[in-house]
């Protein structure tokens, strides 16, 4: 008897046309076709989606949480990237 566990898949659902696919969770399935079938039963029992993506979890590369400061801190000091940084004189509209 083989004791091969089904691989783990990450599931992404598009809730309606025009929106992006969003991560909803994971599940196990023998291959990508069965992963989609299982995802339909596990994650869309109440019309939560119109499209499903599955990606085998081992193919996802994630940033390291301990690098978070180095990666994301520099953006914090660049407030001039936001429109609210600028003064718009009174009386100027549509800007």
């Amino acid at each position, binding site marked *: *008897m083989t004791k091969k566990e*089904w691989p*783990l898949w990450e599931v992404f659902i598009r809730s309606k046309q025009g929106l992006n696919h969003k991560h909803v*969770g994971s599940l196990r399935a*023998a291959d990508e076709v069965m992963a989609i079938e299982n995802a339909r*039963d*596990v994650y869309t*029992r109440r019309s939560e989606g119109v499209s499903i993506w599955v990606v085998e979890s081992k193919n996802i590369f994630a940033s390291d949480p301990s690098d978070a400061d180095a990666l994301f801190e520099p953006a914090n000091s660049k407030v001039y990237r936001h429109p609210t940084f600028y003064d718009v004189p009174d009386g100027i509209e549509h800007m």
Partner: protein
Amino acid sequence: MKELDITELERKFQEKIDNEIRIEPNDWMPDAYRKTLIRQISQHAHSEVVGMLPEGNWITRAPNLRRKAVLLAKVQDEAGHGLYLYSAVETLGADREETIDDLHTGKAKYSSIFNYPTLTWADMGAIGWLVDGAAIMNQVPLCRCSYGPYARAMVRVCKEESFHQRQGFEIMTKLAQGTPEQKAMAQDALNRFWWPALMMFGPNDADSPHTAQSMKWKIKRHTNDELRQQFVDITVPQAEMIGLTVPDPDLKWNAETGHYEFGEINWDEFWQVVSGNGPCNKDRVDARRKAKEDGSWVREAANAYAEKRKARKAS
């Protein structure tokens, strides 16, 4: 790792918790936090899966097609909830198959409520109303649990669970308004499930050694006794509304505190059921073990089919 480093990591970890910043799978966490979560989430997953058995017992005997469709949908939801939770356990590094085997060897526990038998159709009502009601009360605060994947699974579960309670209350209401025999059946189900439902919240706070640490880690947000009191306060008027009597001679409203006072829970019975001596403990675990064994050819066939499909695609 040096001991000093760990102290510093633990301090930063607690700081995040205190600031309501969620912990995600790859973040550093104390071993004890990880172990507590693995234990709690896997027990929760097992409860969802074992919870299918008492209700599955009545699917083929539902009184009409509407009730049958509803019960099927509810039991299918419980399977789904089990799957969300097993996935959450896996994010903590636990092996899925080992987790499931721990249930089968008796190493892991599940909610003791599912060790009671479902003797009549009214039990489907009592379970939905009381057992799912108590579960919701436990699960709503878990939506704000400090561990991200558990909290997200709970949001999904709670959204789905409210129909479970309503369908149960509907069954009880209909029976309570029916013939004297039907009303008696509803009352009997309430009599048998009331106390086990109160036990679902776990031991009294004084006998619950993990509560303080779990609250400090914001895994838990309320103590067992707080949640139990809330459940009694909400449920007693619902029973009165449909003309059923809560089986507790000591139950009385305290206008000063704004809460119901209720009788002493039979903790001997609770510990007996938890330690494996409830009416159905053996049946439940046997059924799960049998399901795994009987399903093994399906899992192997799926693997074989996947291989075949892959080979065909490559050629």
